[in-house]
């Protein structure tokens, strides 16, 4: 889950309907029981991961020599709009896409995804972690297969914390308390706070015991006390100089700050492990520590993220697409993404493999994922982020109070979710 700053080109997808990266080929689907044709795969993994994914995707061709896998890397920040443009226009959409967990319900609701129940794409569903499988369901049908799961954790620079003589903070209050010592002894700021990305607001919200909405009772909950406190917590961290933040380019700035040692800690997920390890501070891989996201005044929690593989309903080559989705979420591929990228598998059986079990990052993130807070898997789930982004920016720049911000987000939620209280 990377709701990173997209270095989007102008008119992200306006012109995309016209591009040629469509599901070309078609192909007769099962001539003689053998799959053939072209499968276009949109991969949304980041720069540090995409080479690995390209190789894994293309290895499908070894098992099905008549299938041509067209690998296309699409920046995460653009992928949602790009897919919607292409799928809505009926031209240029990929056959299979690596879809963020919150997008599945949205796309399914719009009719863009093929239901996978009873198709070869789904096999041995009992093997999937229940949380990961939860994000693939929409209105009693399955619209995706889980590929990797994740949640946020606290990345920390062991050397800097040791030099400052502080423990890894368990709450944001502890972090604030330790910040001055870290600054004085090491010159580094304690935390990089992603102010540009609403996803990073969730640990603060959960930490105060709040949530975006109560999807079961259809109530907007972000504007209650916990929501206000969460905005205040974010503001206090920045005001007290315990954290630095940005309203733009947060993904790049955070990664750079952590890699260069100008901040001692940052909240991020497994997808950044490879990127962080490329930095000069982490030449010694052991210098990178990962701990649970610090808690707020009420509890501790971080959102469940991850990636699923969805099949486009308009794919001209459904059989091969189903087989490809199944392949990319197979135990074999999941094992390889863990070994090479330290990403977390969604299959229980993969966690029993020694190479996965002994992976340090999996060792940390697995318990965190088991406890991660499930987001509301509703069609509007992804739309709930934009209002937070606007208001979080406003709070951090001092143009709104936490109270005003929480109220404004709540109001816009009631506009998005018409039948909510």
């Amino acid at each position, binding site marked *: 889950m990377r709701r990173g700053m997209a*270095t*989007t*080109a*102008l008119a*992200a*997808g306006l012109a995309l309907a016209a591009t040629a990266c469509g599901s070309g080929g078609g192909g007769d689907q099962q001539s003689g029981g053998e799959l053939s044709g072209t499968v276009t795969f949109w991969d949304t993994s980041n720069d540090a991961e995409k080479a690995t994914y390209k190789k894994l995707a293309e290895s499908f061709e070894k098992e099905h020599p008549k299938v041509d896998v067209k690998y296309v890397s699409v920046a995460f920040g653009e992928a*949602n*709009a790009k897919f*919607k443009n292409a*799928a*809505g226009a*009926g031209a240029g959409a990929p056959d299979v896409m690596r879809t963020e967990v919150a997008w599945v319900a*949205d796309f399914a*609701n*719009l*009719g*863009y995804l*093929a239901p996978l129940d009873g198709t070869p794409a789904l096999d041995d569903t009992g093997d999937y972690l229940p949380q990961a499988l939860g994000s693939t369901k929409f209105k009693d049908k399955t619209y995706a297969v889980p590929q990797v799961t994740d949640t946020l954790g606290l990345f920390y620079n062991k050397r800097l914390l040791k030099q400052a003589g502080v423990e890894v903070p368990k709450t944001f209050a502890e972090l604030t308390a330790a910040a001055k010592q870290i600054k004085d002894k090491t010159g580094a700021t304690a935390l990089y706070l992603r*102010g*540009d990305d609403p996803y990073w607001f969730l640990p603060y919200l959960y930490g105060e015991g709040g949530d975006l909405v109560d999807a079961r009772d259809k109530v907007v909950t972000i504007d209650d006390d916990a929501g206000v406190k969460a905005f205040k917590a974010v503001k206090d961290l920045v005001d007290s100089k315990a954290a*630095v*933040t*940005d*309203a*733009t*380019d947060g993904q*790049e*700035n955070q990664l*750079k*700050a952590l890699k260069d040692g*100008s901040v001692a800690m940052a909240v991020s997920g497994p997808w950044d492990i490879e990127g962080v390890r490329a930095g000069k501070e982490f030449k010694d891989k052991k210098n990178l520590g990962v701990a649970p996201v610090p808690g707020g005044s009420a509890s501790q929690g971080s959102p469940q993220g991850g990636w699923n593989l969805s099949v*486009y*309903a*308009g*794919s001209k080559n*459904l059989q091969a697409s189903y087989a490809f989705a199944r392949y990319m979420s197979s135990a074999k591929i999941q094992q390889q993404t863990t070994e090479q990228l330290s990403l977390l598998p969604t299959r229980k059986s993969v966690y029993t493999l020694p190479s996965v079990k002994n992976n340090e990052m999996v060792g940390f993130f697995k318990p965190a994922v088991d406890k991660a807070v499930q987001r509301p898997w509703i*069609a*509007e789930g*992804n*739309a709930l982020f*934009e209002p937070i*982004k*606007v*208001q979080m*920016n*406003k709070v*951090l*720049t001092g*143009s*709104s109070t936490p109270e005003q911000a929480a109220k404004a987000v709540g109001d816009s939620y009631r506009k*998005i979710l018409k039948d909510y209280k």
Partner: protein
Amino acid sequence: MPRTRRKEAAAAPPGRVRRALGTHWYAWTMVAPVVLVIGVIIGYPLVRGLYLSLTDANEANVERNIGMNHIPATYEFTGLHNYTEILGGDVFWGRLGWTVVWTVACVGVTFAIGLALANLLNRTLRGRTFYRLALILPWAIPAFVSVFTWRLLYNEKNGLLNKLLAGGGIDAVPWLNDPTWAKLSVIAVNVWLGVPFMLVALLGGLQSIPGELYEAAEMDGANAWQRFRNITLPGLRGVSSTVILLSTIWTFNMFPVIYLLTRGGPGDATEILVTYAYRLSFVDSPRDFSGSAAWGVLILLLLSLIAVVYRRSLRKQGEVW
């Protein structure tokens, strides 16, 4: 030929049309493809947009066939609901206020700088061609490339601008992270992008002013400021009124600078009307086609209004345009 003339007079209105068609049929056939194409690529979307703005259409309720999934059209005609909703809320007025400030500031500063530079370049000076080329360069670079470059420069933590300031002992400026700075930053970029156009247009205008006027004024003892006020400015009026109107319309709708630089942020501090309309139809989910169309219609109306009022005021000043 008195007979034919009388005949014409008798069948005056339809006859004229018929005659026009008769004598100019080839012109009409030549124009027809253009009319057709314009009708298809401008007329149809415009009418369709107008229609959508009167409905509650969004991404989830328009008709589509995607492979095995058929989504029927379930949107309804809602009349002026979208418009009352928009005009009754404070989002539109807030964004309009900033859009006006942004447009006036950008056009004003761009015009002033363009005029100053054009005057400088209108003299004979060594290396004039080089300066002209250098000053037109921003125009030659695709806008999004320029904007991304600026974004790198503006980066608060790692950008070149703050590195330079740090060298001078000045604290980092939150270029895009503070509402006021962000507003100044987007205006600066737009000015940078807009100056070459002003420069070229005004330089052309300056060169069409006869040199004798200046000579005569000098003979009469007019100083530089007086010459500028009484010869240059009136001489440029035709050109400047056109470029100001064009530049106002472009700036009002300058999507790429705002969207690529700040995405309307921090918060919604730099969001102008068009970026908000974009947000409605491309960022929010499900995409709000009808709301976005209504915003589009309102923007079109505003711009038409500006153009009409501007033309009127020019005509009052005796300008034929």
